[in-house]
């Protein structure tokens, strides 16, 4: 049985190396369920393609649209899921999406203290640090210290709000549009928006890019 710490990057495994215990277990569970016709092999393949198609670029497109289109922004804040669906982003699960807007007075941060709930349809899979104890444990009790570890210093007069995700309700941060971007096109704006900014751990800045 593997004894390494959870979430740490595994050693590179070449194709010729013997599959590990859990790799074999995954294959065995999947094959048994397919043999029982409880699920189809094509469903797994299709879902892998869906997972591969989800990247933070989708979320960035949503954010940029919200910055340039106030009516869309209003719809996005009213119902994150249906507004994303307007842009052709399908939700492959039963989750609802609440979009949290950063303003001059409020900075939002998202976390899942229990596990790893995350707005996967619009951001893809979460980074390892989002799933590990330090972020999950501390984001709710000392968010300003956590933000500072990401290099983000929030002045005391700005409220920090932390939203804890659940199996059914996921959050996405709508970051503030950076100053000096009045002449940017929607595509140029989207290129500035990073995954971490949509988690809320860093702001969007003109120097940042995906």
């Amino acid at each position, binding site marked *: 049985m593997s004894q390494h710490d959870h979430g740490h990057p595994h050693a590179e495994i070449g194709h010729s190396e013997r599959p590990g215990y859990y790799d074999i277990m995954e*294959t065995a*569970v999947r094959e048994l369920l397919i043999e029982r016709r409880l699920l189809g092999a094509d469903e797994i393949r299709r879902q892998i393609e869906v997972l591969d198609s989800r990247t933070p670029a989708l979320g960035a497109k949503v954010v940029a649209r919200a910055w340039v289109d106030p009516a869309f922004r209003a719809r996005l804040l009213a119902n994150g899921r249906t507004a994303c669906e307007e842009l052709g982003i399908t939700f492959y699960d039963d989750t609802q999406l609440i979009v949290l807007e950063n303003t001059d007075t409020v900075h939002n941060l998202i976390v899942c203290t229990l596990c790893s709930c995350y707005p996967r349809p619009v951001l893809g899979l979460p*980074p390892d640090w989002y799933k590990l104890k*330090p972020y999950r444990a501390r984001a709710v*009790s000392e968010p300003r210290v956590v933000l500072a570890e990401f290099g983000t210093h929030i002045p005391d007069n700005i409220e920090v709000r932390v939203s804890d995700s659940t199996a059914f309700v996921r959050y996405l941060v709508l970051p503030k549009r950076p100053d000096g971007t009045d002449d940017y096109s929607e595509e140029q704006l989207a290129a500035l928006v990073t995954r971490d900014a949509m988690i809320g751990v860093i702001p969007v800045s003109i120097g940042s890019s995906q």
Partner: protein
Amino acid sequence: MTETKHLLNHLPNDIGGLPADPIQRTDHELEPWEKRCHALADVLDFHKIINTEEKRRGVEALGAEMVGKLSYYERWIAAFANILFQKSILTPSELARKMDEVAARWENDGTERSP
């Protein structure tokens, strides 16, 4: 008397607010089996065989030692196996036999393919 209270109030997954180390901005590209495991989780959820809440409870039920020592997707697949046993969809012996079969198949393929 109260020294075990936290064990009841906070199950292994429930770590919000606990003291913890500084954030290390770690990430890794998923291994092929990890991605398959994720897709399997989604498909199990689509079919309502194991939903997200059951998955989380299944990981919690592994207990603190396994939650601490297994990697993220190792916990998932271990939890799926247990949940499928509890629901009488699979039995432990069926899974053990299938795992032997998969391992043996790989050994055979591996020998054939190695230079």
